[in-house]
């Protein structure tokens, strides 16, 4: 999807733990001498300590929290209806009555952006859960089974990775739009479909992550100990392996939210997402693009909303990678 983040692939060395990494020649020589000051902290405290050092991630977390608060509480405070048509004040720039201006029907852009944010975030989160659920399931099955099933599942993951996602997304929506609309209603149907399709095309990275974790952790002593004590397979997975794979999966999940938001906005922008009367961010942008010359505030409002959300989620993902996945197992 355009704008999907590449970070899930292997993007970066952590900013904060960088110094000791660069000291490779010294680390080899001096490592045993460095005191283990940090062992007093629990893993989560340690993670939080590392996350805090990524300043952009912390700032992004604040920005995202503010945006979520605005989207959640905003419509309660800013009670202008999203579809009050007023041709007298159409395409007006920002003013006290309309802080973000109005659109071509004189509708309030701020109210529409706040409402659109709910849909974008809801789609992003729901699609992420679908992707992670499928990914963890496939990854766990592949990692546990090894052999032919493992090979088949990983071949499938590779196959899905080499699918052109946007065309396929468009194809599925094009073919199934009408029947889902009949079952779930115009809004619900599209929501369910978009979430399933976006999530269903993004399970591969987390499946690979979980499987890789499995293969490396499976041989570690504590799991072997559990196996020797007669722990069942499911128990081994749930109690011993999954918690250890959690860090990288959380990072992947964060990135997935950003990617799903962009995917949904792309669909709406192309006019193939939610019905035209529902103001999602992508839809707002699509409607605004024909008035760029006379009412740029309209396009900027929704565009900046998408950009800020995605950017802060990506930075948070980067910070979480520093915090939770310093080894970068990919």
């Amino acid at each position, binding site marked *: *999807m*355009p*704008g*999907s*983040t*590449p*970070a899930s*692939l*292997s993007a*970066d*060395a952590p*900013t904060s733990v*960088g*110094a000791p*990494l*660069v000291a*490779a020649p010294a680390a080899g020589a001096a490592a045993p001498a460095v005191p283990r000051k940090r062992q007093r902290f629990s893993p989560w405290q340690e993670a939080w300590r590392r996350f805090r050092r990524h300043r*952009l991630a912390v700032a992004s977390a604040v920005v995202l929290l503010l945006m979520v608060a605005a989207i959640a509480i905003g419509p309660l405070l800013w009670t202008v209806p999203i579809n009050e048509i007023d041709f007298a004040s159409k395409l007006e720039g920002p003013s006290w009555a309309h802080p973000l201006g109005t659109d071509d029907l004189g509708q309030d852009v701020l109210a529409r952006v706040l409402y659109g944010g709910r849909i974008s975030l809801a789609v992003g989160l729901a699609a992420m859960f679908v992707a992670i659920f499928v990914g963890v399931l496939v990854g766990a099955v592949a990692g546990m089974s090894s052999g032919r099933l493992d090979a088949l599942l990983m*071949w*499938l993951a*590779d*196959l899905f*990775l*080499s*699918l*052109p*996602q*946007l*065309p*396929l997304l*468009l*194809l*599925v929506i*094009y*073919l*199934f739009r*009408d*029947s889902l609309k009949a079952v779930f209603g115009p809004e619900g149907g599209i929501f369910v479909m978009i979430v399933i399709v976006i999530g269903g095309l993004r399970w591969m990275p987390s499946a690979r992550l979980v499987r890789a974790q499995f293969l490396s952790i499976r041989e570690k002593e504590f799991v072997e100990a559990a196996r020797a004590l007669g722990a069942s397979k499911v128990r081994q997975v749930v109690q011993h392996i999954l918690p250890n794979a959690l860090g990288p999966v959380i990072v992947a999940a964060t990135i997935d939210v*950003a990617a799903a938001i*962009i995917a949904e*906005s*792309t669909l709406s*922008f*192309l*006019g*193939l997402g939610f019905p035209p009367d529902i103001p999602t961010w992508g839809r707002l*942008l699509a409607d605004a*693009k024909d008035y*760029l*010359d006379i009412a*740029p505030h309209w*396009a900027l409002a929704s*565009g900046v909303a*998408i*950009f800020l959300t*995605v*950017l802060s989620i*990506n*930075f948070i993902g*980067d910070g979480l990678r520093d915090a939770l996945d310093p080894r970068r197992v990919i």
Partner: protein
Amino acid sequence: MSRQYLIRRLLLVIPAMLGISVLLYTVLALAPGDPFSELAANPAVPPEVAQALRTKFGLDDPVWIRYWRWLIAMLHGEWGFSFQSRMDVDRLIMQRLPTTLIVIGAAQLLAILVALPVGVLAGTRPYSIFDQIANTLAFVGFSLPTFFTGLLLILVFSIQLDWLPFVYRADIDATGWRFYWEHIKQSIMPVMVLGLFQGASLVRYVRSSVLDVVRLDYVTTARAKGIGERKVISRHVVRNALIPVVTLVALQMPIVFGGAIVTEQIFRVPGIGSLLISAMLANDTPVIMAVTFVFSCLVVLCNLIADVLYAWLDPRIAFR
């Protein structure tokens, strides 16, 4: 690189293509309604005639037979007829494909030209001011959705500055240099949108790969040779760092094609991406299937190229 490796890799294309075609056909077959449901619903057509037509086109055959027939037709280039454009789909696509390939190719080139030096510089001076700025800009770059970047560029370069046309025109009535100049001018923005987006992710790949390679032992060996830092970086760091980058770029190709669709739509570039969107809005199913299929083939082709490049860059592969 051994010929054996090349052949083995080429053979791997077959299952990949088969897998993708099965997937595409499954989606198509699961979709509600078939071309004859309308016919059946039409009271003017007697049910026997409808049934005869169904049998004639083999719609009641088992699904794998229908898949096989569909696959053979696709391989023969019999992709159907576009009702919207009133021409054969394969001809339509062949007409539009070069534009898409040129835009994507130019964007890739731009991305590499920007990202390679920036990524190498950032990776060799980690945590410097330059690195931090480059890294932050890269984040901004791939957090900007292509559809928004496109609109921003139009806003700045077409509306505010009035330098560049914001609609791509295939019929430029000019000759000679002017003809090419107009073409270049109208390609600048679409190529920039795609190229900068792709470049932003590439910067991060190159940087992190360089960062990984710089601390390896053989780089220290190279420094100890006294060949100078510039040769150490170009011969021993960049060359090795590019190997994983090739794979990452290939993995990104599906996203790039997605970006191309959006970009073509915004600037109305007459490529297969905008063709796909207009076909969807016009319910032109044969075109939709064909374009999706072509995009899939392109991705598989890119993966193939990446693997060959990988083996060429890394002599260890060919001996595995």
